[in-house]
């Protein structure tokens, strides 16, 4: 019986406690940089597209909401011809980001993407592309990958050894 009175008193004291509600449209809650919100496609530090259209994100996506078509430019760089995410199906699990070998696809702390028409939730590549490198400012896939592209031959990538000359007998 006394414990009931005590709990009543404890609850009453909360009348003078600070309210924890964040008055949303005026005040915004803090979302950490790793928050899983709107998805973006990032670029290299050099400004080139990071995505190599490997389709790993589309495979990893549990709700199959990513669709893309790979193609290649004149330098031999693979890139997606189109890249489409249907955000009305996306569950913001972040699996795509984890699957991506090039840090191209990233989730951002932005959740304000409400729309009146469902069709407007299908984001095309131009909606997804951003100008910066996102959370990984220094990474450049094409500079570390041992793939020959225009302007960078085999063995010229960072920390990459020159390919072994199998015709030579020298060690």
């Amino acid at each position, binding site marked *: 019986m006394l414990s*009931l009175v005590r*709990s*009543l008193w*404890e*609850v*009453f004291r*909360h*009348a003078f*406690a*600070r*309210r*924890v*509600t964040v*008055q949303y449209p005026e005040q915004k809650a803090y979302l950490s940089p790793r928050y899983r919100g709107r998805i973006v496609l990032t670029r290299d530090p050099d400004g080139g597209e990071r995505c190599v259209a490997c389709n790993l994100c589309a495979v990893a996506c549990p709700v199959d909401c990513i669709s893309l078509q790979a193609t290649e430019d004149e330098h031999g760089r693979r890139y997606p011809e189109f890249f489409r995410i249907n955000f009305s199906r996306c569950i913001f699990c972040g699996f795509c980001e984890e699957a991506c070998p090039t840090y191209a696809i990233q989730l951002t702390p932005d959740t304000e993407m409400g729309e009146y028409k469902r069709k407007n939730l299908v984001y095309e590549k131009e909606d997804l592309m951003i100008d910066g490198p996102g959370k990984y400012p220094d990474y450049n896939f094409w500079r570390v990958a041992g793939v020959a592209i225009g302007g960078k031959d085999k063995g010229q990538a960072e920390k990459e050894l020159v390919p072994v000359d199998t015709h030579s007998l020298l060690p």
Partner: protein
Amino acid sequence: MMAKFLPLLVIAVVLFVVLNLAAGLIWVERRLLALWQDRYGPNRVGPFGLGQIVADSIKLFTKEDWIPPFADKPVFVLAPAIVVATALISFAVVPFAPGFVIADLNVGILFLLAMSSLGVYSVVLAGWSSNNKYSLLGGIRASAQMMSYEVFMGLALLGVVILAGSFRLTDIVEAQRGMWFVIPQFLGFILFLIAGVAETRRLPFDLAEAESELIAGFHSEYSGMKFGMFFVGEYIGVILISATIALLFFGGWLGPVLPPAFWFGAKTMFFICLFILFRAGLPRPRFDQLMSWGWKVLLPLALINLLVTGAVVLARR
């Protein structure tokens, strides 16, 4: 001419105040609960979120008013009306200020008790006519709970009646000029408070609707304004019990300087807030705990209170 219309005017004012207060309590309760849970509650529609009352009413009125095909139609429709009607009729004997009362019955308290007992028909009939297991369970619980809590509700009041020497509510208030009855009748006050909460089926005694066990119990089949009637009825009940407590134990309209109606309103409002605090702070007991508390603890206490009060008053003579 004036004397003829005065009672009508009083009735109109009482109805206006009580019904608006009952609707307003939706907002008050949500804001207060939020305050005690460190939230804000509805604060967007209009100043302080007061427009929420209008929004809620419009919503309730425009909802589909559905009567399940398996329900007992006439009873189903009647049930929500009973709860509001009995609660409103009870206000006929409540004196808001000296002379401001619709019917100053000489058995005012008995009338109050009788009307609030009739209110249980609403719950039982609603549970029965819904033709739904959960509703029926809710109805059964409500009837058992009312039955056992009404017994000592009446007994707890008798101490006050003995001290005042009258069943008339105005007399009881006047008898508290020297001292509020809450002091000599503290036990009676506590008992009446508990019984009052049980009588209005508010948390922690809301076993009849217990949404976590009975999915809203007796009114799970109700929708639209019929559901709204149950809610308004519950709020009117809360106002009624709060007003009764203020009248019987806290000197009704008596108070210094400010007008009597203000004092009555302020005391009533205080107890309404206390009711909401109960809801915010207390867990719901198990049904057998509720029953054994009622019969084994509260009823004997009420009897002892009655005996002691009677003995003291006799010895004083």
